[in-house]
């Protein structure tokens, strides 16, 4: 058992490869999380324009990308787009797929946050001469983000986990590199390493999330 899963020799040999994967996972997360947050914010701001011409297409967009499995979306972009004459590397496909998929999730969270801010806040801001955008930026959004912080964090956790999907389209992130190492060494130890690293990477976030959720509950009481 220990030979198979916790082989020290293999760990030593695989470490540089797995480390490269870890850095790429961190890099990928640092790109797709802000991208998703940005896309989500735009969707939420558009949703705050309650015009039917904006609302219905927006709802269709968000529903579509929330219902569409991200793995299928990713494979479709990677394997399908070349047939449309557009060849993107795996990294670009992951960025686009995450922008579409996680952006829709972040968008719904931001929208709930904006809805949670009482209308009187906007009225007070507008009554002092702030424009609609200024009221949104200085009064509504700071409160909205604070109100949905646990949900934003929870979604971010999911997004970081989902970066492992990149391995399917040859993005050299943690899981991909671990599988490379596994296939070279004929031993599953590198996969175990990847699992442990994922855990160590995300566990602090999970702890932070629990604390935020507990505080939110205490605040409600």
């Amino acid at each position, binding site marked *: 058992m220990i030979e198979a899963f916790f082989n020290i020799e293999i760990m030593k040999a695989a470490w540089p490869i797995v480390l490269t994967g870890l850095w790429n996972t961190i890099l990928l997360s640092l790109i797709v999380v802000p991208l998703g947050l940005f896309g989500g914010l735009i969707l939420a701001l558009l949703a705050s324009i309650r015009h039917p011409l904006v609302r219905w297409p927006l709802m269709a967009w968000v529903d579509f990308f929330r219902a569409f499995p991200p793995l299928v979306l990713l494979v479709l972009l990677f394997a399908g787009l070349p047939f449309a004459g557009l060849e993107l590397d795996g990294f670009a496909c992951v960025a686009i797929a995450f922008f579409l998929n996680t952006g829709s999730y972040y968008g719904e969270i931001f929208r709930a946050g904006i809805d949670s801010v009482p209308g*009187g806040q906007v009225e007070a801001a507008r009554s*002092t*001469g702030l424009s609609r955008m200024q009221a949104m930026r200085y*009064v509504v959004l700071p409160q909205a983000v604070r109100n949905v912080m646990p949900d934003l964090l929870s979604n971010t956790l999911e997004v970081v986990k989902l970066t492992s999907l990149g391995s399917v389209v040859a993005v050299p992130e943690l899981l991909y590199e671990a599988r490379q190492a596994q296939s070279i060494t004929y031993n599953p130890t590198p996969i175990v390493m990847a699992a442990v690293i994922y855990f160590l990477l995300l566990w602090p976030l999970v702890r932070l999330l629990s604390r935020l959720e507990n505080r939110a509950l205490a605040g409600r009481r």
Partner: protein
Amino acid sequence: MTSHIVDARAIHKHFGTLHVLKGVDLKVNERELVFVIGPSGSGKSTLLRCLNRLEEPSSGSIVVDGIDMLDPKTDINHARRRIGMVFQSFNLYPHMTALGNVTLALRKVAGKGRAEAEALGRAALERVGLAERADHTPGQLSGGQQQRVAIARSIALEPRVMLFDEPTSALDPELVGSVLEVMRGLRESGMTMIVVSHEMGFARNAADRVVFMDDGLIVEQGPPAAIFETPSHERTRAFIGQIQRH
């Protein structure tokens, strides 16, 4: 052109099938304190909210300090700076300190630098007796203090008119006095004020004129003594009677 600082004519407001304002005229002189009273649902708050266009009137005309509030060419954000508004539920920004609440519009609308905005903000808090609470957040303040910060937020912009929408209705009775005290001070400094409120004692000794509204219309208006002692309409009499029994 008009000599009145507020000149609203034939204001109608529909909410769907509900006809809330049925042709209201309201003219207010400079430095005047006008009290608007009436049963709930009479349209008094809606009228107030139409004056700074928080509510869009269905028809009519509103001129405040020479600015046509309903003209699409009017820069409404600029116009609103000159009209302060105080809300029943204070509506302070909970994520900012008292000073932050007061300086936001000074900085972002009036375009003041941070130092100047903070000096003006502290002066406004001083006027409502809360200079030492500048760094407190709304959650750390009593309801009366919150409402005074809300007044400071409005007066810091040096408005020409102040609108008060039931400013003391959400307050515990022992906190009402401090807010009325600030309003009295404002009146003495010559501020034009339109107040929707049930504080009849305050109306009696501070108002220049009392306007009684019912069912979307102004039923009668006059000096407080006349409205409270010798109302000429049956509906006014009934309302005053009800209020005074409490």
